[in-house]
């Protein structure tokens, strides 16, 4: 007996309430944008400049004492957070100290870092500085710009690719689903105030790729079924295609999630935010390929008179000519 996440034969109606799904998505997007507008993202130093110092000490961390020691240095806004992780040893106490970008300089100077290190050593003599990173405001500004360009470029490239391989309605549906995923991910990051840095941009782009992966598989089946069942109306074809690919969609998302959850739990705190973004992205990506991309496609309608008859069926490249 095989393990099955989805019954082998499903005939669920995904389009009984198309407006409900679109409404839910629209509401979520509004919430995400609202959160982004109100709380904003918790940008890492990659995007707003400044310095982070990761400290490690065998003694328990007294955040208040750290703060008091650093306040005297007059470096402006300093945030100190204690980091907890199941992978840490008993006597491994880790904190992240973040110092804001200094107004008049591109990068925190070596003397300032030394002053911070000395001040912390006075509080906890065995303290180690396992990583020190500074980014000047000039670079951080550029990093934001390239990040935004990267995401827009990826979306544009995908739009063009799907348009070429399918029809413009498909491309539009896929891209709306993509934007939906990206916006919801940014919304979660602003709501939970998880640090948003360069790696998260990589995660966002992966989500773009992954969400598309799902959408394209469904669309591929829609394209095939549109040729096969010329009489059925679009809604039926869409529903059939989603049902047929459902088993695969769930399987793939599940295996990917399995792998990512392993990384989330065991991979250490340094990449946890990054992995979280991907896990979230895969969940919304799977949802959006069924409930957003396809619903949009349904609303837009598709041209049914495929100019070329499907005479290449049975050939290896049967479906690569669209």
């Amino acid at each position, binding site marked *: 007996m095989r393990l099955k996440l989805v019954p082998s034969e499903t005939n669920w109606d995904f389009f009984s309430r198309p407006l409900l799904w679109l409404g839910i998505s629209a509401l979520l997007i509004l919430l995400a944008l609202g959160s982004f507008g109100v709380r904003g993202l918790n940008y890492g130093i990659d995007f707003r400049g400044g310095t982070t110092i990761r400290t490690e000490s065998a003694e328990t961390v007294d955040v208040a004492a750290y703060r008091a020691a650093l306040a005297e240095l007059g470096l402006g806004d300093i945030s100190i957070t204690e980091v907890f992780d199941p*992978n840490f040893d008993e006597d491994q106490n880790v904190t992240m100290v973040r110092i804001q970008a200094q107004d008049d300089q591109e990068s925190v100077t070596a003397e300032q870092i030394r002053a911070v290190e000395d001040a912390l050593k006075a509080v906890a003599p065995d303290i*180690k500085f396992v990583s*020190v990173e500074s980014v000047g405001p000039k670079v951080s500004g550029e990093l934001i710009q*390239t990040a935004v360009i990267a995401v827009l470029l990826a979306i544009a490239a995908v739009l063009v690719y799907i348009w070429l391989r399918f029809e413009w309605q498909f491309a539009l549906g896929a891209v709306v689903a993509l934007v939906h995923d990206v916006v919801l991910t940014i919304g979660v990051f602003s709501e939970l105030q998880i640090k948003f840095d360069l790696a998260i941009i990589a995660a966002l782009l992966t989500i773009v790729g992954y969400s598309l992966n799902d959408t394209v598989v469904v669309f591929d089946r829609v394209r095939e079924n549109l040729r096969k069942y010329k009489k059925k109306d679009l809604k039926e074809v869409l529903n059939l295609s989603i049902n047929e690919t459902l088993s695969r969609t769930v399987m793939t998302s599940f295996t990917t999630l399995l*792998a990512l959850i392993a*990384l989330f739990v065991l*991979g250490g705190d*340094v990449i946890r935010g990054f992995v979280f973004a991907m896990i979230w992205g895969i969940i919304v990506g799977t949802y959006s390929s069924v409930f957003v991309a396809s619903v949009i496609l349904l609303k837009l309608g598709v041209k049914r008179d495929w100019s070329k008859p499907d005479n290449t069926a049975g050939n290896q490249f049967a479906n*690569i000519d669209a």
Partner: protein
Amino acid sequence: MLQIDTWKRVLIWAVCALGLWMALPNAFYARVETHNDAVAAIELGNTSAEMQEKASIWPDWMPSSLVNLGLDLRGGAHLLAEVQVQDVYDTRVKAMWPEVRDLLREERATIGTIRLQDSEPGELRVKVSQPENIARAAEVLRGLARPVVSLTAAGQSDLVIGVDGDEVTIKLSDAEKQATDERTVQQALEIIRRRIDEVGTREPTIQRQGADRILIQVPGIGSAAELKDIIGTTAQLTFQPVVGRASSADAAAGPGNEVLPSLDEEGTFYIVEAAPVVTGEELVDAQPSFDQNNRPAVSFRFNPTGARKFGNYTAENIGSPFAIVLDGEVVSAPVIQAHIAGGSGIITGRFSVEESTNLAVLLRAGALPAGLEFLEERTIGPELGQDSIDAGKIACIVAFAAVLVFMVLSYGLFGVFANIALMINVGLIFGLLSMIGGTLTLPGIAGIVLTIGMAVDANVLVFERIREELKTAKGPARAISLGYEKALSAIVDANITTFITAVILFAVGSGPVRGFSITLGLGIMTSVFTAIFVTRLMIVIWFERRRPNTIEV
């Protein structure tokens, strides 16, 4: 039907075997690394028995390229520096004063006496006493201009000579500025590379980024501050005639002169001529040494041109002091006792032995043509990197195991095939990474884990399709071949779109993000290869042997 030509089978297995073979050294990382280091040392001439022994712990006929570990995994320092290219404009223009002075003096009859005026950086202003003939002065000075040496601006002049009332101005032209920027950055790159090589660390990355930036990554170094000590010092050495002494930095220096502080004596300032007699560029060697009082010093030697200039100057100026200036500070200002003809000398100051050694290294490697401003610096401790590697390893193994078990539960024997393909897939990623000398970063490990999850996708697509085809009861052979054919377009489209994003990440990303895009991109290629060819081949071989009447996927 289910037929694969023999040559194709051989080719598929050969590709897998080659990939796994190339990946093999990574399984013995520490050992191969020791071997590689030893081999490099032997090539450099260190053929000691110890090195030979170290080199022999990994056989020579085995592949020895490893996946580079990124800074976030190995620990080390990362700096992004901006070369202050505009510094050079000023130095260039100011250094022209003696030549300008000599040229204009010859024209004294028409333009009268000349006087250097204070001016903005990057500009030379000369006042003439007979402004009615100023055109002549400008004309003479135009003779100094040379064509710009560059491909894009060939033929344009390197100087802009202007007339402003009774003053002539000399500036670099825009084309020359561009050409200078290019040279300055190239030179800075070369000098940083030389300095880091002198210190001798393993596999530093020194790359130009954009128009005027340089990215420096040195694994294994303790901190970015240490790295900055080596490369952040300009080490611009000049020998300038001393005009007088002053007690504050605000003392009036007079045109053509500048006030420089003393390196050791606080509160002492020297007024020196701004145009140097000789510069550090004309040094051929510098070594740490000791002066006659046995204090640490640096001895140096000039090249022939430098030696001639220095010799002539000392011969003409016996009895007057000159200043040895390092990065705008006067190290010492001895009085010239005699004509120094040999072209060698010694710099004394209050150095420690370490400082004199460092200074010698810097002088030998050459001065940076312009200052550096550090825009970004990161230090990652080796412990943190090791922790990340350990965590990543465990996560990979667990992710792998979970996916393997799940695949067998879902697809039975076909799941086993997919699993074998998955293992080959991960092996191929490492093989390819080693071959292209790619760098594995922490997000890169995440990329591999993601690939483990997604690599089964292509197989899942095919298996699900085979299941569907089996329902229409065409017999197992037909179902398998149809399953592959019909799933192909979905596999191709889905993976190309993901690949597009990987390419974009690679193009615009940097550092860890780029590492991620490399593993993601390679993972897509290998997973498509293993799913379409390797799993299919395994299924076909199994099918040929068993000839089952029914199959269950």
